[in-house]
């Protein structure tokens, strides 16, 4: 008996398919005492782990904040992750973008992946 089919995870409709290299805006629910507010973490997805059907599925977002690299890992099915917006698809050739940790500024840029335009042959 498979545990993932037995206890299905509820996927959040506000989270699209994300892949490594995407620049994303993650809205996180933060509880401050009594108040609940939303916090945004924007950066590049450097890894996606364990697919989407697994309760353990997670992804890591990297951003440079005030010159310091910051990485946060989110559980894909966590109720704390309210929404994920994909801003840009980066063109990458690896599944895990750990090499970005050693690069800065201009070298850490990723080329944008655009959907192929159809030629209009009349």
């Amino acid at each position, binding site marked *: *008996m498979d*545990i*993932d089919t*037995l*206890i299905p995870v509820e996927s959040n409709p506000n989270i699209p398919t994300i892949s490594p290299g995407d620049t994303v805006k993650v809205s996180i*629910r933060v*509880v401050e005492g009594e108040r609940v507010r939303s916090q945004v973490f924007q950066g590049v997805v450097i890894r996606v782990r364990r697919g989407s059907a697994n*309760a*353990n599925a997670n992804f890591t977002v990297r951003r440079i904040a005030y010159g310091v690299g910051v990485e946060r890992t989110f*559980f894909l*099915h*966590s*109720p*704390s992750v309210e929404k994920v917006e994909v801003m840009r698809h980066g063109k990458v050739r690896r599944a895990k973008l750990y090499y970005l940790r050693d690069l800065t500024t201009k070298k850490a840029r990723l080329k944008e992946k655009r959907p192929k335009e159809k030629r209009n042959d009349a």
Partner: protein
Amino acid sequence: MIEGIIGRKIGMTQIFQENGRVEAVTAIEAGPCFVTQVKRVAKGGYDAVQLGFGTAKRLNLPEKGHLKNVGLLKHLREFEASDIDSIEVGQKVDASIFEPGDLVDVTGISKGKGFAGVVKRHHFAGGPKTHGQSDRHRAPGSIGATTTPGRVFKGKRMAGHMGDERVTVRRLKVVEADPERNLLLVHGAVPGAKMGLVTIKKSTS
């Protein structure tokens, strides 16, 4: 009311609580079990209920005779029960005897580790890693004194077979009990391998 049930460990996963925190849980296929025998003080010297679980492919004649009114069940275990007079042979027992928040004791057969050394088996520290040591890294060290007492004390912790023994983990919290899917989620880990047989009893203390 029967105080326990037989099940099969499915595996571990995690679930999200409402506040976003993660809770590690073990999923157990709990039941359905059937009462195969009611033991009474008058006849056997003690009160207990025998439950059966799983489908048996083949049983010998004494087993078939014992289960002739219930069906072919593979595993039989005894449990305590309150108001034992109301329990009848053939009665079904499922996960509905548990509720979220209950504390349970889970018993299983731990994974066998084979012949294990003292570092793994008894958490010895082993020897120094450097300063000219050769083959002393995982050695047990001294196992006793000299002419007095002239022997090694009984019960001295040494290398030997580890695991594959009956282990009970007490007071685990029930997170979910779903009799329809025969599913029981308990907080934390449970002894044994996936698909291993476990018995779940209500905690007494």
